[in-house]
């Protein structure tokens, strides 16, 4: 086993932590969250310049050939900074899907544009009544000449409002399939809204949206394993983001325990609070271990092994993040529930991460089901 990062990875970490500290301050971030699009195109351009948008793509399309561990380092830093830009939706999930399943032409068209910061993509997959069940899709694609016509509704599409193109899952006669749809195509309605953590998501309705034969991504009827894999990349990234937030909350809480005085002494002198703080740190370290496992297994060629590990990590980190988030708020007292301090924002983001791509209970269930298979 080797838990060390490579020199390149250490350099990436340093760059990211400097960037977050210098250019992604809490007040700047608050202003961005309230802006029209909810993030900064300037930041996005800088992400491109830093190579972050090219990170997980192969070199032959201008990528940096990074792996899920590299993505983990990015997301951990983004968690601390509560980064609002749609990196997860565009680069990790939708970009990962095109990388793994796109045709040569699709890769050539889309990946360099993503890497250069010129194109935003989102996976429009989940639907309202399905909750977290990935295989359940009511959106349908009907053959229409050489192309297709798509109809249906997609819910809480992360980054959907800012996306130029959407990757839409829909059923054909052969099963679940994926289609590349222009977000401005006739029949596409996008209702973008703010999320509880200051991010953006959208409800997307498709009404007889016509796409050509070349819009199909991957084999017709073969989308389910592709979507599962892309979501697993996304989950591994979310796990890392959680760990970044948990570490930041631990630091902030520890500092508060050392500086906040009541009864003539720092409240960190009280043993009940010391033990709580220790439990938070233990939870964070355990979560970090699972996030590492998730990153490594996200690249596993064995789909069953990958699925099992990713669900284990998402369930466990969701539980630990809940504890750390709630206790960070509790130990900050009133200061933990006000908008003006970053603690409440980290807590809200952790809460929403749990609710994204399957919550702790959902993934505990998936993991638990694998025990029957042995």
């Amino acid at each position, binding site marked *: 086993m080797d838990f060390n990062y490579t020199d390149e990875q250490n350099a990436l970490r340093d760059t990211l932590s400097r960037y977050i500290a210098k250019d992604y301050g809490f007040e700047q971030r608050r202003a961005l969250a309230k802006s029209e699009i909810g993030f900064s195109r300037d930041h996005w351009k800088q992400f491109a310049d830093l190579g972050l948008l090219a990170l997980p793509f192969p070199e032959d399309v201008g990528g940096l050939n990074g792996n899920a561990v590299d993505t983990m380092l990015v997301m951990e830093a983004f968690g601390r900074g509560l980064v609002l830009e749609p990196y997860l939706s565009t680069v990790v999930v939708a970009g990962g899907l095109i990388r793994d399943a796109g045709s040569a032409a699709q890769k050539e068209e889309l990946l360099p544009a993503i890497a250069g910061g010129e194109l935003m993509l989102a996976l429009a997959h989940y639907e309202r009544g399905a909750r977290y069940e990935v295989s359940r899709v009511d959106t349908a694609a009907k053959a229409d000449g050489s192309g297709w016509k798509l109809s249906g509704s997609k819910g809480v599409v992360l980054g959907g409002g800012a996306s130029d193109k959407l990757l839409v899952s829909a059923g054909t006669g052969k099963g679940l399939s994926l289609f590349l749809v222009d977000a401005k195509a006739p029949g596409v309605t996008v209702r973008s809204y703010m999320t*509880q953590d200051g991010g953006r998501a959208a409800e997307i309705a498709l009404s007889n949206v016509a796409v050509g034969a070349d819009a199909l991504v991957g084999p017709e009827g073969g989308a389910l394993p592709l979507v599962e894999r892309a979501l697993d990349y996304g989950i591994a990234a979310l796990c890392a983001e959680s760990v970044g937030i948990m570490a930041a909350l631990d630091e902030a809480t520890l500092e508060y325990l050392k500086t906040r005085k009541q009864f003539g002494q720092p409240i960190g002198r009280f043993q009940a609070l010391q033990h709580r703080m220790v439990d938070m740190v233990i939870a964070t370290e355990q979560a970090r271990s699972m996030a590492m496992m998730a990153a490594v297994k996200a690249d596993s060629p064995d789909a069953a092994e990958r699925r099992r590990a990713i669900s284990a990590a998402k369930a466990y980190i969701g539980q630990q993040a809940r504890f750390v988030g709630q206790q960070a708020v509790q130990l900050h007292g*009133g200061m933990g529930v006000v908008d003006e301090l970053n603690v409440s924002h980290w807590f809200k983001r952790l809460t929403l991460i749990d609710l994204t791509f399957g919550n702790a209970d959902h993934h505990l269930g998936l993991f638990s089901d694998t025990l029957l298979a042995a």
Partner: protein
Amino acid sequence: MDLNYTPEEQAFRAEVRAFVTTHLPADIGAKVKGGKRLAKDDFVRWQKVLHAKGWGATMWPMKFGGTGWSAVQQHIFEEECAEAGAPMQLPFGLKMVAPVIQAFGSKGQQDHFLPRIVDGTDWWCQGYSEPGSGSDLASLKTKAERQGDHYVVNGQKTWNTLGQYADWIFCLVRTSSEGRPQEGISFLLIDMKTPGITVRPIIMNDGEHEINEVWFEDVKVPAQNLVGEENKGWTYAKFLLGHERTGIAGVGRSKAGLKHLKAIARKETSAGRPMIEDARFRDRIAQVELELMALEITNMRVLSAEKEKKAPGPEASILKIKGSEIQQTIAELQMQALGHYALPWLPEALDPAWPGEPVGADYAAPLSGHYFNYRKTTIYGGSNEIQKNIIAQMILGL
């Protein structure tokens, strides 16, 4: 032992239900049940309806204009009000300052203030915590200096709930720096219109304006607004906190919240099946119901035992701890039931007049904010850590 309601109590419940369901203004009930933002007037209107019936102050003795109801009757009343979707009767006047005025106030204070509380004329808020004095409340620094027939107050209070609506604030102020910190505190009633008072909003984690900082700069308060004796305010403050803690158990509201949770779990679906059919989720609902069943009886045990006493004892801390945890769990499960649809933030949807289409179900918009906001319940009114200290010291002698 008999844990059943007597025929008299059942008849009483029917009477309360009949009144509340017919007299609660429909628009207010709809707002409460829909989790919409309540206006000051919604609280005041409901208080006036109750007052007209003679039920404005169910926790007060009859000689002060209360109903003189037993603990069981009060519990039935609160349960029926919550079930019907009545707004909470805010505790600051009725349950906090009024018992102090009744126990320690002058005849003049009782005659002036109590009727105006029960009939909804005066809105009260609390001036206890300060930025440097939270759990360690006795270290408070807001100073009141006696000058002739006035006190002159300077300082800052915080975590002041809904003070933006208030006519009066009850304050703990320092009138002496001699002896132990507890010995130099006095209890003052201050008119919010007095020059020198500034109310500044603090925005909560749900984006709402519920709490404030209140600043006092050379605020002149007539000496007759001192409650009881100078430098005895700490005794009154502890008495008040005991009363606040019983209210915080919130059994009636939690029962209404649990019912709402079950309704949501029947409507939300996972892969087309109602969430209530998901055993993992249903067990979570069942677990909190067990906690609430136990608390309901514990609550009645504690309140009944205190009936003969003047003030709630340290057992009230048990009610505060379990009550707040249950409220938080119910709020969390309501949010969790939504899955992805807990993510959208539509503050405009909390406006009763908003004409827009909801994102997801029509009940979804307030739930995540409610969960975030309710983290306050284990912090306010003496954090649960402080409550455990009280139990350890006062009950267990540790």
